[in-house]
């Protein structure tokens, strides 16, 4: 898969934006580029990239740009000043993990001016097992809300339909049908269909790149 210097990951809560962002950054890294993850999530108090920053840095050499570690659990919507340097640096690759919904995407909107002339892919992640984005109509409605808040247009759709640990291949296939419908109705191309690694291995001839995901956001009883 080809990729641009900057990738922005948007979507509804629970679509798996964070897992997509982390795994996509790993993919860019594997292709030989220096890449950061920008943690722009100001709405979720737990399960954010900043919680695995050490694991990503030590294991993959991927830096998580977010608020300073000592303010990690501050209940304040703070963003790192380093985000500007990532956008302006012509060499560095970056994946932006934007917080869920329009509420989370607002924080990203402030960068729209300096992003206007940059090389950017904007993903909208779809999980049809989420009640508010269960069909093409509701997904498009959500996408418009999020686009307006983020002040940027979506360039690609990503199907990441899942049920957490209970995901089956059928979930992904069902999700892809809806994503294709969204693509037909909006003219936005599908970038890939993602699934956790064990499910991805079972998916054949999907017509799109199948992107395997290793999960990072785990509950304490899923860590062993």
């Amino acid at each position, binding site marked *: 898969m080809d990729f641009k210097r900057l990738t922005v990951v948007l979507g509804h809560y629970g679509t798996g934006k964070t897992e997509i962002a982390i795994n996509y950054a790993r993919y860019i890294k594997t292709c030989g580029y220096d890449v950061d993850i920008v943690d722009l999530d100001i709405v979720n108090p*737990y399960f954010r990239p900043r919680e695995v920053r050490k694991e990503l840095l030590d294991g993959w050499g991927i830096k998580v740009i977010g608020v300073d570690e000592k303010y990690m659990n501050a209940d304040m919507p703070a963003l790192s000043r380093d985000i500007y340097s990532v956008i302006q640096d012509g060499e560095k690759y970056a994946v932006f993990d934007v917080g869920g919904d329009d509420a989370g995407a607002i924080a990203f909107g402030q960068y729209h001016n300096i992003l206007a002339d940059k090389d950017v892919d904007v993903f909208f992640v779809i999980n049809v*097992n989420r*009640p508010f984005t269960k069909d093409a109509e509701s997904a498009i409605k959500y996408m418009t809300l999020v686009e307006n808040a983020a002040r940027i247009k979506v360039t690609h759709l990503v199907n990441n339909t899942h049920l957490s640990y209970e995901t089956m291949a059928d979930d992904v296939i069902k999700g892809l049908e809806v994503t294709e419908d969204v693509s037909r109705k909006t003219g936005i191309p599908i970038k890939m269909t993602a699934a956790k690694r064990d499910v991805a291995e079972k998916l054949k001839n999907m017509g799109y790149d199948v992107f395997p995901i290793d999960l990072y956001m785990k509950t*304490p*009883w899923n860590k062993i």
Partner: protein
Amino acid sequence: MAKVLMKGNEALAEAAIQAGCRHYFGYPITPQNEVTAYMAKRMPEVGGVFLQAESEVSAINMVYGAGGAGARVLITSSSPGISLMQEGISYIAGAEVPCVIANIMRGGPGLGGIQPSQSDYFQATKGGGHGDYKLIVLAPSTIQEMAELVQQAFHIADKYRNPVMILGDGMLGQMMEPVDFDILKKEENKIEEKPWATTGKGTRNKRNIINSLELDPQILEKHNIEIFKKYQKAAKEEVRYEMTNCEEAEIILVAYGTIARVAKNAIEIAKRENIKVGLIRPISLWPFPEEPFKKTKDHVKAYLTIEMSMGQMIEDVKIAVNGQKEVYFYGRVGGMVPEPMAILEEIKKIRGKK
């Protein structure tokens, strides 16, 4: 509708709506904000009321009013916000008004932090406000169970005309799991007549009054005794618990909510080392289940209570065990979560004791 993926907080809100709750009052606080956000979106869709009050004190008194008028009403908050509501909760219990209150706990004391905790057990089960009253307290462990217990909570609240509390930690509110609303019991969602509610005098001979003030000591004493008769009934009928691998267990863990899931991990690891460990998971924290301790205290060596607190539920465990076996404690606080290997270490320490 098949399974959907939801945050605990969203499932809490949706379950309430499906249980016929059309009144929600709240004030935002992490880590339960998704309930407020969900209700702001969903209530207008179902013709309900969503109102963000100017404070928790105000919100709980709105609940008092709506519940008094017979509505199924929900309020949610997290630890410091629940503390602010205690006066109103005592009034609601005193006036015998049904409502459902959810506390998605974070670390304390004081402002504490936003990470998960279970340190409001005392506040929930021992009467956080003034006066002699009880809350019926239910503690889900999965998102599916969250949806089930929220619906049961509305039913129980109406049945006893008393507030019911859902007690979950921040993790339960924030994590996502599949949930199936179709399999929930629908009869609990039927709302029975409430002839006591302040819905206007109508054809009644007397006005209904919702009040917790009583200046005559004899009548106030009688009122207290009447309320406690309800609690005796609830203590018989509302006990809920789960037992896992207890029959041959040498040591039994006692844990509620998400920590019971960590405890189950520890049990699996212990099994690999041929250590027989069981789990008692109280689902109703008040009434506290004493039955599973009666069933197990003859054959077990000791109990180990695991909490995200400095040791609160352990007091109820000790009452239930009544000095007949040792009760040990392992806890983490401040947003730290007990880990399976650490629990296993505690189990080994207890086994080594005479």
